[in-house]
Structures are given as structure tokens and as C-alpha cells.
């Protein structure tokens, strides 16, 4: 074997020393817009932490988060995984026809069974004849299950349909192949069009005729959602977020309970200032919070709706509120149900349990 040539040494030196020099001269940043998260900062330096090894771990995370060309390196890894190793996915995100899909594989039966039990517990505590349940499919539901490793999400909806004492409204069948525009490309949520599809089905089942004809306003054309950062595919275009307008929607008020005794009300269901934040999807009713009440004083009826929900409901709720005096959204990840029963009189109101398969399958806290 002939020895490697000296250009080998040159290549190595240029790579290691060049990258190190560039890395040392680059300034740490606070957040990553592509990954939508805060980045690790230089860790606290103390003798105690150094001796215990905590500093080394944090420093490692800091280097990884702040390394120069981080996004480029993540794109390269994604390219190697998909184009060279010919995998369909990177970091658990399928990349199919310039669209991103959260890999939905493995049904967590324990979580689903528990969700059914907890829902029934809530239902027993409320005296109402109008209790509804619906399950929103995750985007992977649109993919051909024979080509990708996917679990059948209908199993989750079926279990809840059979075991929860509520009128089941089917959304699983309302979304299928060809409905890609009903979900964001870069995010797991449904788009405004997707929310309208959901609204049509739900409101009909509740006995109302859906409103039609909205004006749409684009609030951003650079929405990089939760799947964008994970997939790290540079050729994927960022999403546009549209919000819908009509005179009724434009007169709604949103009251957000940040804590139990800190309630702030806003004269819109859209929070434009959130578009520049970490999660532009928060433009809808201001994002996640324990309790959010949408008030509509132009409603034809005095009827009220209570929704136990995850974040998919944020884009949907204003549409439902067109028919109702109030829509109250409870996110049980942030507030205890005992407190709700104590503070709110839910008897006689319409109640909707609305959860996506993804959250049901992965987050055990949704009904705590």
C-alpha cells in the first residue's frame, strides 16, 4: 500500500482548523428559527459543576447547538440519509413529494385506553345531553400505508368511539389522499382550510348550517413549523399562514386565562404579533393556554360550547364560535379539571372532546 499523499494532511488541517476558527469567531445566538427552539448557551462555570461533570455535558450541548453552519450540517445529514442511504425519512419525518409527514408508527394503547377512561370521568361530572367526541387524524393519515411504515390511526378513533359515552363525529373519513393542502407542509397542524373542513363536519353534526364565503388574509409567508426543523430539508419551501375574515369573525373577543386569576381579553381571535415569535401558529387565539374563551356577541343563539382540546382546536374554534355566544377551550395540560369544575358551571352546555391522534398517542398529560 502506498502511503497517503500530503494533500491528505492539508485537507485535514484545513477542515479541522478552518472549522474551529470559524466556530470560535461566530457569536452564539439565542434561538434557532429553523428548529423553533431556544439554543443552549455557554454553561455556568463553577468548580463544583466541573467536578461533577455537569459542565462538560452542558458545554457539549452548547457546542452542538451553536456550532457554525449548524443548519447546513443538519441539511447535509438529512441529504445523506434520504439521497445516499435512500431512507424515506430523517429524524422520524417522512419527506414525500416535497411535503413533510410526522412518522406515525406504534399505537400507544395504554395512553388511548387511559384517555377514554379520563374522558368518561369528565362526562360523568357534567350534566349535559350534548356531549360530542371527535378525533383529528395526523397528516400521515394521508399517506399510502403500504409504502411507508405507518400505524392505522383509525384504531385510535375507533377505540374512543366505542368506549367514550359521547356522540362520535367522524373526522377521520373527512381527510384522505389528496388533501395535502389541508395541512401545513412544514408543520403537523391543519391549515385554515383544514380547520374549515373540520368545522363543516363538526358544526353540521351539532345541528347548524356552516357559514361559507370568507376573505383570507396572509399573515406570513415564512412559517417554518415543527417538522421543518426536524426534517432539515433545504428544498422545502416555508408555509404561508392565512387567517379567515368575515364580519362575525372580526367582532369576536378572545379572553385568555394566563393563570387562574389573570385574565386578559383581546378584541380579535388573531394575534398578529405572534407571527414573529417562535411558533407563528400561535396567531390563532394566541396559542396554548389553560383556558381560552372566545366570545361572540353577534351570535344568533345564546348557546355555549365547551371544548376539551389540543392545539388543533386553535385554528378551528373561531369558526365554531360563529354560531355560539361563547366557546370555552380547556387545555388540561395546563389546568386541573377539578379546578375547572369548581370555577365553571358546565351543566347544560354542549361539550366537545377534540384531540388529534398524534397528541393522544404521545402525550399522557392531555387529560390530566
Amino acid at each position, binding site marked *: 500500500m502506498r502511503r497517503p*499523499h500530503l494533500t491528505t494532511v492539508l485537507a485535514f488541517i484545513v477542515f479541522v482548523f478552518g472549522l474551529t476558527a470559524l466556530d470560535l469567531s461566530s457569536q452564539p445566538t439565542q434561538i434557532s428559527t429553523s428548529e423553533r427552539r431556544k439554543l443552549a448557551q455557554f454553561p455556568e462555570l463553577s468548580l463544583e459543576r466541573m467536578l461533577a461533570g455537569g459542565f*462538560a455535558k452542558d458545554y457539549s450541548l452548547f457546542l452542538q447547538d451553536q456550532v457554525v453552519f449548524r443548519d447546513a450540517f443538519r441539511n447535509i445529514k438529512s441529504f445523506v440519509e434520504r439521497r445516499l442511504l435512500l*431512507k424515506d425519512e430523517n429524524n422520524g419525518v417522512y419527506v414525500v413529494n416535497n411535503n413533510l409527514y410526522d412518522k406515525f408508527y406504534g399505537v400507544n394503547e395504554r395512553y388511548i385506553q387511559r384517555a377514554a377512561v379520563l374522558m368518561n370521568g369528565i362526562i360523568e361530572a357534567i350534566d349535559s345531553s350534548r356531549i360530542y367526541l371527535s378525533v383529528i387524524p395526523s397528516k400521515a393519515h394521508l399517506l399510502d400505508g403500504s409504502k411507508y411504515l405507518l400505524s392505522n390511526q383509525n384504531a385510535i378513533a375507533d377505540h374512543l368511539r366505542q368506549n367514550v359515552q359521547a356522540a362520535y363525529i367522524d373526522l377521520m373519513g373527512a381527510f384522505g389522499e389528496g388533501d395535502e393542502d389541508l395541512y401545513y407542509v412544514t408543520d403537523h397542524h391543519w391549515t385554515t382550510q383544514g380547520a374549515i373542513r373540520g368545522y363543516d363536519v363538526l358544526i353540521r353534526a351539532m345541528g347548524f348550517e356552516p357559514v361559507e364565503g370568507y376573505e383570507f388574509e396572509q399573515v406570513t409567508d415564512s412559517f417554518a413549523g415543527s417538522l421543518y426543523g426536524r426534517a432539515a430539508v433545504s428544498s422545502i419551501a416555508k408555509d404561508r399562514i392565512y387567517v379567515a375574515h368575515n364580519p362575525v369573525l372580526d367582532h369576536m373577543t378572545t379572553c385568555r386565562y394566563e393563570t387562574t386569576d389573570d385574565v386578559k381579553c383581546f378584541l380579535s381571535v388573531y394575534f398578529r404579533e405572534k407571527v414573529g415569535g417562535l411558533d407563528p401558529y400561535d396567531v390563532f387565539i394566541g396559542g396554548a393556554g389553560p383556558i381560552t374563551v372566545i366570545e361572540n356577541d353577534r351570535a344568533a343563539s345564546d348557546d355555549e360550547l365547551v371544548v376539551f382540546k389540543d392545539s388543533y382546536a386553535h385554528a378551528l374554534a373561531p369558526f365554531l364560535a360563529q354560531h355560539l355566544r361563547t366557546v370555552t377551550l380547556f387545555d388540561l395540560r395546563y389546568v386541573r379539571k377539578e379546578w375547572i369544575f369548581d370555577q365553571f358551571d358546565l351543566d347544560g352546555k354542549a361539550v366537545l372532546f377534540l384531540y388529534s391522534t398524534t397528541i393522544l398517542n404521545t402525550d399522557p398529560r392531555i387529560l390530566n
Partner: protein
Amino acid sequence: MVFSSLEFLLRFLPATLLLYFLVPERFQNALLVIASLVFYAWGQPIHVLLMLFSCAINYALGTAIDRYRGSTRARVALASSIVVNLSLLGFFKYWDFLIANLNSILGSNIGLLGVPLAVGISFYTFKILSYSIDLYRGDSVTAKDPRTFLLYVSLFPQLMAGPIERYEAIANELVDREHSLDLFAEGVHRFVLGLGKKVIIADNVALIWDACRTTTAPSVLSGWLGIVAFAFQLYFDFSGYSDMAIGLGRMFGFHFAENFRFPYISQSITEFWRRWHISLGQWFRDYVYIPLGGNRVSRWRWVRNMIVVWFLTGLWHGASWNFVLWGAYFGVLLVFERLLLSRLLERLPRLMRHSYTLLAVLVSWVIFALDSVSDILSYFGHMFGLRTTELYNAESLYLLRANAVLLLIAIVASTPALVVLYDRFSDRAYVRTVLMPLLYLTVLTISTAYVVDSSFNPFLYFRF
């Protein structure tokens, strides 16, 4: 510190290289020692003291062995060195295992200490032991300077996971070694390829093994796919580490022994162990097997020797019964191979010999990978269709299809094919001046990309 981390690639390595080649030659060893101590202290500073303690005491004992050569004192010094080393290893690696077993046998309730494993202790303790024994036997020169001995033990490229180098083998280089661009280029070659083996192949096939091991939809295919993936993970992880160690050694002017020679092409288990973790095999041969009489004894004593060696080899890998079982499995297989199978094997076609070897090795990896007997039996059930009647299912077919290219790369890279290819074309100028440097840059870039986009993946052999 881990070679495949940004703190190594973008901080420790450039800083160490820069300082090493800037300081006058007489300070280079001191610099390497300091760098090695920082390398070891990173993340687990307390264990440095343990290593320094071990170095100090064994250096003194080594000097005594040399000074009182031929007398009882030398024997006492050697015995002390062995006792000290095995006690340290025993306490820091096996104490809780011992107590837990005592508790279960005697029904006692002695508290466990939860001693954290000192990474690398199995490797440097064996290096130190070889030094003391070689000195006693007159097979090695003494380290004249305690700093040289400290450098031998702490040398960062091989501190965490070998190769287990004998002092004699690098004694001259520890004191005086040549540096050259050619040698450095060789070092780059080995280091970069080792990094790629670890980061691109080992950490990636590890995901297949995890998926197959934890699946809720077992099929015969996923059982085999999983253990094949684990076999590749272990090989590319450990041989990748050894390549990086050897490569780094070359950059600093050392020639470390080879630790792997394409073990998966072996035609028998005997051959496999001449190709897998070579420095450990040699250690047990030189310091246990041969002193016990090797094979120049009666058949029964030879069988006893094999049992002892393979029990210890198993136990060396970890304080857990599955490693002992794994060692015993190889011991039995090797005895069986020598006494009965060797003549039969010689008459078989290559393909069958190779298949037999791979099958036996794959079975061994099940025992190696899973630490409870129930998990091991359950996994065998998975492989041999006792846990499932499905030959394959959607999940296992998907895993196979999605990882086909990766597995193909792993198969090719675990044979000498690429080395043969390189040898054939390496005398062409454009290969050495352009293609290979481009390949190194590509592997470095892709490896860095995987490191950036990964969670923490320590080397498997750090556990041992």
C-alpha cells in the same frame, strides 16, 4: 471525552495538535500527558486521581521489580502490583456485582455502593499489569522516568478503549519518536475512516437494532435483522474507535498495534478470535493462558485452561452474568472446534465454514447484547420463530428496505474489499493527491453533520 464529539474535533484535537507541534521537542511528552489528563478528566474528573494513584504505585513497584531482579523482593513487588491492580479493578468495576450476587446467594442484605465505573479502567489496568509482568519476566525495559510511565498509561488515543499496548512495544517511541508528514497523513487516513465507521455506520445501524429489539410486532426477519445490525454496530463502533486511536497515534508519532483484522470474514471461531479485539486476546494468551501451560499440557488441563481464560475474558467485558455466559460460550465452542470440528471444517466448502462462523458469532452477540437470561431467551425465540409465527411483517420489511443501502455499505466495509481496491489504485497519482483527500473531506463533513444532528452516542466499549 469522546472522539466523535464536537468538543474533541473542534476544540481538543486542534488545540493539542497546535501546541504539540509548536512547543520544543523536549516538552512534547509533557504536553501529551497534560492533554491526556484533560481528555480523561473531561466529564469525570475524579477518576483521574484514581489513574494517577495507580500509576504512582505501579511505577514504584515496577522500579522495585527491576532493582531486585531475581530475588524474592521482586516477586513480592510483582505480587503487590497484581494485587493492587486487580483490587482497583475489582472494586471499581465488580464490587456491586459481587455484593449483589452474595446477597442473592446468602440472602444477606449488604448495601450496594453504586460505584460509578471509571471509564477506561479495564484497559489501562491491563496495560499496567502487562508492564509489571513483562518487567518481572525480563521481557520489557523499565520506564526510567515516571513521566514516561505516566505517558504510557494515560496516552489519550488509547486510554478509553485500547488497543491494550505492551510497554515494550512502544517503549522507544515514548522516549524518542519521529514525526513526519507521511506518518501524519497515514494518521489522518486511519482517523477519518475510523470516525466514519463510528458515526456514519455504527450509530446508524444501532437504530435498526433498537427498533428490532423493542418491537411490539416481532417477526423472524426482525429477529435476524436486529442481531445482524448489532453485530455491525459492535464491530464498526469498536474497530472505528481502534482506527481512530491508531490514527491519532500516528499523528503524534506512535505505532500502535492493530486491534481488528476483518473478523467477519473468518472461517472458524478460532480464526475469529485472531481477528477480533486482537490486543485483548493476546493479553489473555500471554498472561493467563500460557502461564497456565497453554496447550502443552494434558487434554484435561488444557480444557481447564480454556475455561479459565474464557471465563475471565467474558468477565472482563462487564460485571454481569451475560458476559460470563458469553465468554463460556466461546470457550466451549473453541474447545469443541479444536477437538471435534476442525477436521470436519477443513473438508467443508468455504461458504459453509463462513456461514457456521457467522451463525455462531451472531448467537454470541445475543448473549452479549442482552443482560438478563429471560431477555436472551426471549430474543432467541424472536429469531427462531418461537415468539412469533410470522416470518416477516410490514415493519420488518420496511426496516430492511429503508436500511438496505446502509446494510450493504456495512457488509462491504467489513470485508477487505475496499482495502484491496485502494491498494490496487493507490499508486496512481490522482488517487492519492485528489480522490483520497476528497474522500477524507467528504467523510469528515458527513461525520460532523451526523455529530451535529445527534444525541449523545458514547462508544460501546467504554462500558467495559
